[in-house]
């Protein structure tokens, strides 16, 4: 029971780090980015290459995953995404589905279609027992890393100058521009940060979620659920939603395995029926 809770929390925190970037682009900037998972996958494979093939330590592999996905995010944002911000939702959907399909084919071509695992150092393998509860070291590490990142994100958004610029740019682009805020740069940086976090999540989660070319399609719905259920007014909403989803999914798979992914889809649809209008509407945002 406690183990399930523990696994669920680890899973949920992982989902939060994966989806945090999406909650900004989809939730705050109102851009339908179905390709978010592609950045997570890019990070996962970047870590895979540097750790497994080049023999770089695991920790540095995570950093590499973050940097690679962030750079990729910044590049694509400046070259492609920037043209699509102002287009209709249908265009955004088509565009990002296109990116997903391309990423799937590219990874399939370069890395092969089978599921792969990043080599974990022996220190992180096995379990430790705290207060009589056996906990996987790896999952404990995930909780610690993701917890720290969440705290940093929360502080960054509410306490720093960049955070207030971002909130201003999202609330009213024109006024923000008038006040001398470089909205394009703020969005690009945010996008890069979100992609980087996704990449880090992809690398961290390779052990739990698996890593194969259809990763972006497989987990697209999870990211969307986090953003939908969590709402967009603060970072706390998506965080709680991730935990709920993580625990719900793990518990569902443990107790009623025959239902499979049923539980979470149903949760999502129920929430959408329950709060259809308020989900993506944020007071003050355009």
């Amino acid at each position, binding site marked *: 029971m406690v183990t399930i809770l523990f696994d669920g929390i680890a899973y949920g925190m992982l989902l939060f780090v994966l989806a945090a970037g999406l909650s900004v682009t989809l939730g705050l900037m109102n851009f339908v980015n179905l390709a978010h998972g592609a950045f997570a996958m890019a990070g996962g494979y970047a870590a895979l290459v540097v750790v497994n093939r080049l023999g770089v330590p695991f920790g540095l592999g995570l950093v590499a995953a973050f940097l690679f996905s962030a750079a990729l995010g910044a590049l694509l944002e400046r070259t492609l995404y920037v043209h699509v911000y102002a287009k209709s939702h249908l265009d955004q959907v088509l*565009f990002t589905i296109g990116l997903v399909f391309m990423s799937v084919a590219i990874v399939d071509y370069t890395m092969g279609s089978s599921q792969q695992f990043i080599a974990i150092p022996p220190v992180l393998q096995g379990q430790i027992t705290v207060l009589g509860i056996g906990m996987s070291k790896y999952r404990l590490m995930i909780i610690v890393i993701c917890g720290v990142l969440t705290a940093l994100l929360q502080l960054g958004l509410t306490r720093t100058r960049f955070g207030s610029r971002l909130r201003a740019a999202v609330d009213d682009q024109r006024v923000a521009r008038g006040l001398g805020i470089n909205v394009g740069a703020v969005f690009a940086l945010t996008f890069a940060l979100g992609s980087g976090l996704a990449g880090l999540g992809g690398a961290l989660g390779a052990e739990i979620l698996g890593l194969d070319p259809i990763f972006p399609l497989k987990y697209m719905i999870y990211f969307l659920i986090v953003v939908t259920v969590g709402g967009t007014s603060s970072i706390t909403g998506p965080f709680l939603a991730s935990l709920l989803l993580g625990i719900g999914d793990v518990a569902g798979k443990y107790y009623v395995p025959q239902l499979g992914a049923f539980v979470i889809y149903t949760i999502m649809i129920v929430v*959408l029926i329950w709060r259809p209008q308020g989900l993506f509407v944020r007071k003050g945002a355009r």
Partner: protein
Amino acid sequence: MRGPDVSTSAKLASAISAQFTARARWSPLEVLFWLAALATIWLAPDHHLILTEIVIWALLALSLDLILGYAGIISLGHAAFFGIGAYTAGLLAKHALVSEPVLALLVSGAAGAAFGFLTSFLVLRGTDLTRLMVTLGVALLVREIANRAAWLTGGADGLQGIGMEPVLGLFRFDLYGHTAYAYSLVVLFVLFVIARRIVGSPFGLSLQAIKGNPLRASAVGIGQTWRLVGIYTLAAAYAGVAGGLLTQTTAFTSLESLSFDRSADALLVLIIGGTGHLYGGLIGAVVFRFAQDWISAATPQYWQFWIGLFLVLIVLVGRDRIGSWVAPVRRLADRVSDWRAWRRPPAVEPTAPGEGGRP
């Protein structure tokens, strides 16, 4: 207070009905299109298998066009209805519940419609984003059900052992797909004619008003709920029939018919041909299937990459500009029908400008 001028309103009514008659007239290009399609039954007997696939894609895209192009509802889960139709047709044939294909096809359509009706209430609520997520979620849910209910659907192996009875008890399905193609084409034509009538009717026009501006549409007294429910249900029925056709012509169905890829590809087919005119899906299906055939012959495994690239380019270049190749063709069609109308005296006197109370 005087009532409305009777003569003016009568004239207006006749002018409106003349408009509708003009809209409903088949232009020579349309006739030519369908004659060409009909001719392929005899002219291209070696390609009937791929042509049947094209017809099914066309029907699915037509169905998506009804909600996207005419009512402005974005759906990422149209495969749900397609798959439900496919499995319905498969189960009916497998267990010999309804062994006559045309009848079974109607039941497939009805199954799609029933599910569409039920889910339409979810889709009605909320914005584009919510609709995207709900349609996507519903489709994933249906796929998961089909995957889990292996005792009924065969699960990941697909539904096997489907034997098809002859169409109408007369035409036996053959190995080369001749019967299948003729059968599919007739179904497509019938459904197309029905869709054409619906789209040109006052109901169809009111849908376009809702798509254009929901707020103004309600302001002039066009209620949205039941119109959107209606068109969504109709589109679901069409998708169900398309799915049923796939099962009947291939004697097999699998989870692929419910997959996200199918929803996305249907969207792509429609976008290639252009939304908001019924021929979009049909033309898109022809282009899509032949392109797929050609590319996958060149690079079998990475066909998906090229779809992706195509989608990205289509958005970056602008859908309007890509769709605009249709405009000259339409203008030509209009001119041809104008020319025909000019040769015959018009049946109804067109309203002269300046009528309606000006001195």
